[in-house]
């Protein structure tokens, strides 16, 4: 899939804004991802070319930090907390149920682009453990049987 012209221009503008300095790579990746949602191969090549560094370096940084992603996120990104409190209160079972209902693995997006699934460690709401966030919304004290209903109720 080729990037649209305006996306290419936007990425180049982000690089220009940071003076095309190799030391600004992480900041540029942050902005590019928040603009486009993810960092596809072509975007990384553009950034590498603008900064005058090999694409292998850019790819190395993108794969090193779990924050960066090369797959497009769903319209409603789901994050399951696997922090200590949530984990001991059964968040892994929640995760398995979400995987089953959506038929995707962690790091993937549903074919219709509605949901994507990720894990994280602690959102600071341990009192509500186990916690799942969908978009900006936090769901607490969930049980596996609640999962299907919640997902069904989220609008397209």
């Amino acid at each position, binding site marked *: 899939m080729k990037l649209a012209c305006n996306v290419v221009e936007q990425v180049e503008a982000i690089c220009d804004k940071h003076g095309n300095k190799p030391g600004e790579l992480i900041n540029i990746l942050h902005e590019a991802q928040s603009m486009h949602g993810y960092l596809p191969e072509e975007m990384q090549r553009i950034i590498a070319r603008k900064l005058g560094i090999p694409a*292998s370096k850019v790819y190395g940084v993108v794969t*090193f930090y779990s924050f960066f992603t090369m797959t497009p996120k769903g319209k409603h990104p789901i994050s399951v907390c696997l922090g200590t409190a949530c984990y001991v209160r059964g968040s892994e079972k929640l995760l398995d149920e979400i995987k089953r209902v959506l038929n995707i693995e962690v790091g993937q997006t549903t074919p219709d682009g509605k949901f994507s699934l990720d894990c994280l460690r602690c959102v600071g709401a341990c009192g509500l453990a186990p916690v799942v966030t969908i978009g900006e919304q936090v769901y607490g004290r969930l049980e596996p049987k609640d999962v299907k209903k919640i997902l069904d109720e989220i609008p397209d």
Partner: protein
Amino acid sequence: MEQNMIQLTIDNHVVEVPKGTTILEAGKQIGIEIPTLCHIDLKGTCVKNKPASCRLCVVEVEGRRNLAPACATDCMPDMVVHTNSARVIRARKTIAELILSDHPNDCLTCPKCSDCELQRLVMRFNIRKMPFNGGEQSERKRELTPAITRNMEKCIYCRRCESVCNNVQSVGVLGAVRRGFDTTIAPTFDKMFVDTNCTYCGQCVAVCPVGALTERDYTDQLMDDLTNPDKVVIAQPAPAVRFALGEEFGMEPGTSVTGKLASSLRSLGFDYVFDTDFGADLTIMEEGAEILHRLKKFLAGDKDVKIPIMTSCCPAWVNFYEHEYPDLLGHPSSAKSPAQMFGAITKTYCAEKMGIPREKIVVVSIMPCLAKKYECARPEFKVDGNPDVDYSISTRELARLIKRANIRFTQLPDSDFDSPLGESTGAAAIFGITGGVMEAALRTVYEVYTGQTLPHIEFEQVRGFEGIREATIDLNGFPLKVCVAHTLSNARKIMDKLRAGELDYHVVEIMACPGGCIGGAGQPYHHGNFEILNARRNALYAEDEGKKLRKSHENPDIQKLYKEFLGEPMSEKAHHLLHTHYSDKSIK
């Protein structure tokens, strides 16, 4: 004591070193070999890797709580260092054991067995069991390209390959990806080499301390062909091979083994033992003619002629410009490499002369190079699917084959190459070093252009190991500006200037490997010792000096080939057999 010198104590020896010297280097100065796996510093070239990632070089510095990595710790005045205290030795052993916990232990069948730096350290540290067995050996990629074999399960993350690929060659294919146990060194976007802009220069193989990156081995195929009575197997060893092969048999670096090389190939059962040096002389005839052809047009005011003309014998360099400079493909000479010229002539002229059909002939090149393996597979160099050079083996592979065949290499008598493709000149011998192709071309171009005999045959201006060298040669009043560069990062500097219209040369020579072919990726491993490259260089120039004929156009067999078969340089027949074309292979 001079101002920029400092004094310290290492293992009770007082040593004086310049400021900025690391403990590792200071130790080396007084004969203390601190072990290391990741560090490499091929002085005199730009091959360097200092990530302090393996931690095997840790030493104890008095007054410091933690052990310090010797490769990344600068010497300080009055420092007291212990490189062999009980604490250091214990720590080092544990580090090696931890590296082993994530490394397969199939050493017996590993291609690097007995030439592996990790194996050597395990022996040195007296490790007899693996206490951390069963570590998380995550699955990593394997790949077999025509030139390079990749088995990342054996990788120890020293990052040497990444350093050469990015900093020395500026190709930027290899890099570290992911983290923790999932870390691997991989081509960009986890692609296979074949889908990247990898040039197959193989310098990653040349520095890999273990068996993660090795050459693709063709010795079994060669054994089959040698024992097949229906095949006529023809050998052509490259110039640089003869100045390094002896090292594999314990001979001093810099021993020229030309005569033993020919004898060993004959003992192995090759039907004809010819010489790529003949192909090198032929290359000079064609490339030299092309240089003169373009120069004449240029001097006549032709605006379309592509100046500078660039050499095209290095196959990694060819891959490099096809990938990265598709807009400048008119500049490299259309002349094929010596090995490919040799193949084309063998399977036409020679086949005809000997009355052997093309299909029965197997041409095997013995090269200091891994990219040559890829070059053999290029479709341009095949006639109806039959390659001009069937395959290529490296200097190391030949050494292994000789050992397998019970041949005592050091005891072999010297012998000559076979006729008619065995005669060569000193100009061909120096093809194996950076600046050599240029010098060989100048010897012929000068005499053909001016019609006079060269007053001084050596062109010292283009010799040496400096990354980019330039010279102006007086051709009867015309100042011919030439430039020589080695490593692809230096090639990139030149090509970027050319693209910007800022390049002011007439002829440019590029070789991809540091030092040229003598430092090729198929040569015996140098393990970071620059003196080995230096010794090979001296042997090469000595060979040239000892030759009766030192200019390609004086080679009688070459003259005969043109008279009987090709006509003259750049004739229609020569063009068909000895020249090629390039195509845009950029990654979109």
